[in-house]
């Protein structure tokens, strides 16, 4: 068994540098790597490119890096919940590459899988297709999309073991599994770290081979973006 545990988030983030490209899991604020984001803020790494479906909110998630102007470029599908983001983008301080959500996920998965390029119909006929190869398959137009390249992927799982195997919970899964193994180094933070042999090998969502470093995170806030409830009838 190959051990992937590191003692804490500081050790997990060893090697991060200015101007690197990071992938960060999460959808909205659900399933984001809270501990790693806090460490990126603490280290004040600058000029980074972030591949993440969303950009957090003003005071949480990637919004924390935006506040400190650490991000040079965002590659996302939806960034509508963040006023500071909009300000930096409209003023030109922040580069933004908006791409379809399914294409974002598939470009991560392609990087994980050693597939350098693939065809998708998403974005054909729109500005997303500009400068991209267009081709017809089965009577339908498609555009060619490339696998991402990133230096670090930061993901959050529910449980993990010392071999780096991961299990996610609910819709906090989202982009996290697709980003594992899609960057040079994948750092996984988990709510509960257990010894190898504890998890059922049938129920592992991401095998440890896709993870280089794993640690148990602390003080998860898990903020809810839109609390919607029913009254008991």
């Amino acid at each position, binding site marked *: 068994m190959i051990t992937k545990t590191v003692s804490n988030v500081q050790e997990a983030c060893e090697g991060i540098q200015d101007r690197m490209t990071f992938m960060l899991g999460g959808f909205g604020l659900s399933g984001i790597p809270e501990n790693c984001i806090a460490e990126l803020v603490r280290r004040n790494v600058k000029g980074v490119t972030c591949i993440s479906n969303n950009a957090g909110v003003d005071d949480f998630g990637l919004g924390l890096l935006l506040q400190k102007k650490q991000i040079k470029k965002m590659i996302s599908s939806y960034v509508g919940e963040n006023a500071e983001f909009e300000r930096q983008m409209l003023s030109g301080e922040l580069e933004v590459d908006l*791409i*379809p*959500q*399914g294409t974002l996920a*598939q470009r991560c998965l392609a990087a994980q899988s050693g597939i350098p390029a693939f065809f*998708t119909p998403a974005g054909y*006929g729109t500005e997303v297709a500009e400068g991209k190869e267009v081709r017809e398959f089965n009577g339908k137009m498609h555009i060619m999309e490339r696998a991402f390249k990133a230096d670090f992927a930061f993901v959050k799982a*529910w449980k993990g073991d010392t071999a780096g195997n991961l299990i996610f919970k609910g819709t906090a899964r989202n982009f996290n599994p697709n980003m594992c193994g899609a960057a040079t180094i994948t750092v996984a933070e988990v709510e509960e770290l257990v010894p190898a042999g504890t998890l059922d090998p049938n129920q592992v969502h991401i095998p440890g081979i896709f993870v280089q470093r794993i640690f148990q995170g602390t003080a998860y806030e898990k*903020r809810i973006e839109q609390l919607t*409830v029913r009254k008991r009838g």
Partner: protein
Amino acid sequence: MGLDKNQIAQRIAKEVKSGYYVNLGIGIPTLVANFVRDDIEVEFQSENGILGMGPFPFEGEEDPDLINAGKQTITALPGASFFDSATSFSMIRGQHVDLTILGAMEVSQNGDIANWKIPGKMVKGMGGAMDLVASAENIIVAMMHTNRAGESKLLKTCSLPLTGVHCVKKVVTDLAVMEIRDNAFHLLERAPGVSVEFIKNATEGDLIVAGDIPEMQF
């Protein structure tokens, strides 16, 4: 005069057939779930990674690890499953989702749709909408017939950056149900009390009116 958002949703709910997997966009489409008949076998997919989405949780039972694509807390029904984003878009891109209902800022008579960007003003991003409209064979747009300035949102040509081309088959607004084919809006139904003339005036694109146009049934 004209329908309110709940009535638009109610009318669209009639388009949901038994056995359908349905993806609901943010806004009016979300309301459709409230009006689907109980005897219809249907499952709602949310592209952030759930199939078998249920209603909002009871107070105190919300779970930050269980949300929909609008980031709202939700529940999972029996038979539900959770999955990653790539798998979610396999369902969408692979045409396993039977019906997509989404909002729009503009729709053109050739089926183009614009709903993600107002240059220089509003740039929220397309989220999953571009994948949905490029892939779905069955797309219904739910929207108000005109914008706040009273201008038609059903156009000859979209003026805003497109989300997808030649993809919208049906539009349900506060005024009418229309089918898009042969480069025109074909009027199928009127909202109760709304005249064909009124709909014509509110539609910038070509509106084809063939025969008597019935009022919507709910």
